[in-house]
């Protein structure tokens, strides 16, 4: 992008001022005002139909504002050419929308190509981005979307949104359609990515857990209106009304640590996560892709060996899983949550296995943290 088409190097502030959007007689967004600070991750949270996606799409002008203004760094978004504005803003949607007729490289490199970058520059940028989203470039750069699992596609979608180095990312339920454990894995990756990138991110979700896990601040919307904008703690301590307290209540129910055992908060184990030690990594990759997961537990007969992650398998496709499985903490269902939390924190692992005689469930470190807030 030529420098004159680069509208902002850095987001100082986005000011949404008294914005309204109507579709016929339906008011999708009504007099919403909120400020987004540069560098923060702001969550737009609410039930479906609350106007959160419409609000998001008014920022890059996929939807035009009826009343009010949106200012990015004090410039009205309507003063920009919409096409150029969108080149300055990354956008990720739940359906991902990777183009099926293009390879990973072509998908990520499409806008750079239209902007006239050289092939070398595109390749090196694409490789950097693949590294960033934990996909080995050699394995993935020439694949087509249909050869990728859902989680891999979503990572590519994120890489594509970042290709122009836009300081602002808009994300619309990017992890909404994924398997629950995979969703947590990606959230985990996304949190560390976010630290690295230091971008301003506006993130739409209807998942309160996700909101509490990822958000710096959370804006809760209902029927097109902003109900409350606050940090997690403020929401818990000072809910603006019953609607908010109902929403955050579900998050509080796990507050009494001492009474809780691991059994209460573990995710029950689904058969799809079970792999056998004498399988090759290649067959495990296929199975994971089919099941749309990226994490597995390796057993030898009924005996627990360890765990595997999809991205570690690609470099060793001929090896047996028994050689690739790595240890993670193991707990008994009856153990106390507090103890488990400390162990996982020390081991720096976000996944633990719950076993009686055979694996019974999966324990996620952040599951604990977010539920305990």
């Amino acid at each position, binding site marked *: 992008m030529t420098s004159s088409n680069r509208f902002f190097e850095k987001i100082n502030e986005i000011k949404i001022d008294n914005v309204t959007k109507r579709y016929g007689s339906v008011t999708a967004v009504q007099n919403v005002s909120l400020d987004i600070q540069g560098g923060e991750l702001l969550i737009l949270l609410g039930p479906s139909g609350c106007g959160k996606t419409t609000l998001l799409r008014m920022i*890059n002008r*996929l939807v035009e504002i009826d009343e009010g203004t949106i200012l990015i760094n004090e410039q009205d978004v309507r003063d920009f050419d919409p*096409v*150029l*504005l*969108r*080149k*300055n803003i990354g*956008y990720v*949607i739940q*359906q*991902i*929308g*990777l*183009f*099926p*007729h293009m390879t990973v490289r072509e998908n990520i490199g*499409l*806008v750079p190509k*239209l902007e006239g970058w050289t092939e070398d520059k595109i390749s090196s940028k694409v490789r950097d981005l693949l590294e960033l989203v934990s996909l080995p470039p050699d394995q993935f750069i020439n694949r087509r979307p*249909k050869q990728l699992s859902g989680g891999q596609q979503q990572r590519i*979608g994120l890489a*594509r949104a970042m290709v122009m180095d836009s300081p602002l990312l*808009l994300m619309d339920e990017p992890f909404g359609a994924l398997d629950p454990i995979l969703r947590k894995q990606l959230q985990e990756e996304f949190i560390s990515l976010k630290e690295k990138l230091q971008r301003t991110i506006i993130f739409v979700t209807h998942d309160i857990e996700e909101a509490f896990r990822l958000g710096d601040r959370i804006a809760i919307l209902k029927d097109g209106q902003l109900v409350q904008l606050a940090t997690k703690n403020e929401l818990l301590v000072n809910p603006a009304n019953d609607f908010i307290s109902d929403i955050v209540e579900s998050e509080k129910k796990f507050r009494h640590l001492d009474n809780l055992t691991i059994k209460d908060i573990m995710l029950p184990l689904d058969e799809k996560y079970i792999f056998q030690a004498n399988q090759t990594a290649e067959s495990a990759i296929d199975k994971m892709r089919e099941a749309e997961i990226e994490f597995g537990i390796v057993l030898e007969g009924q005996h627990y060996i360890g765990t595997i992650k999809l991205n570690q398998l690609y470099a060793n496709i001929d090896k047996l899983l028994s050689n690739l499985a790595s240890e993670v903490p193991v707990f008994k269902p009856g153990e106390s949550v507090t103890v488990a939390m400390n162990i996982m924190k020390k081991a720096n692992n976000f996944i633990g296995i719950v076993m009686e005689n055979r694996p019974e469930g999966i324990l996620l470190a952040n599951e604990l943290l977010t539920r305990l807030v």
Partner: protein
Amino acid sequence: MIVQVWKNQQLTIKTIEHLSMVFVALLFIIAIGITIGIFLYNKKNLSGIVLNLLNVIETIPELVLLVILMPFFGIGYKPTMIASILYSILPVARNTYVGLIQVDKQYLESARAMGLQEREILWNIRIPLALPMIAAGIRIAIVFTMGVITLGGLIAAGGLGGPIQTGIHLYDKDIILVTGLWIGILAVLVDSIGSLIEKILNRKYGYD
């Protein structure tokens, strides 16, 4: 009998003639059909009228179409080619138009959100994703064209319609049978090539 008919009626040379007529007609059909399809995509309010007009042409029986064209273009090669082109524009134009229109919303939304202009979306997203649909239209056109060009034998257009015509005049059922079967086999062969191309395009540009 087959060898005899084949030799006497010069079916090798007629087949080459026939296929080259089909090929030339298809070049025009594809060029005109896709152009009309893209044009209609750009002027959607005209799509109803134009597609209906093409539909009307297609409802005219092939034979009648040939007869209508004869006063203007005489007999032989010219009216036959024009008839086969007119006849087959509809499936290509319609499939191009529908293929461009029905591209899945998620691809359009992400293309727009990336900052692609409508023209860039047309060339980089819509047209590639419409290719399987366009290929399906071309396949229909191939079958139509084979038929119309065979019929052109009636008005001395050349190709495999000629021997059929001869057979009818001479009451020679051997000629009719051999040539007829051969045209049938040829149509199936050409169509399976079309189907193969359609499959390849589907694998490359299809949705799943």
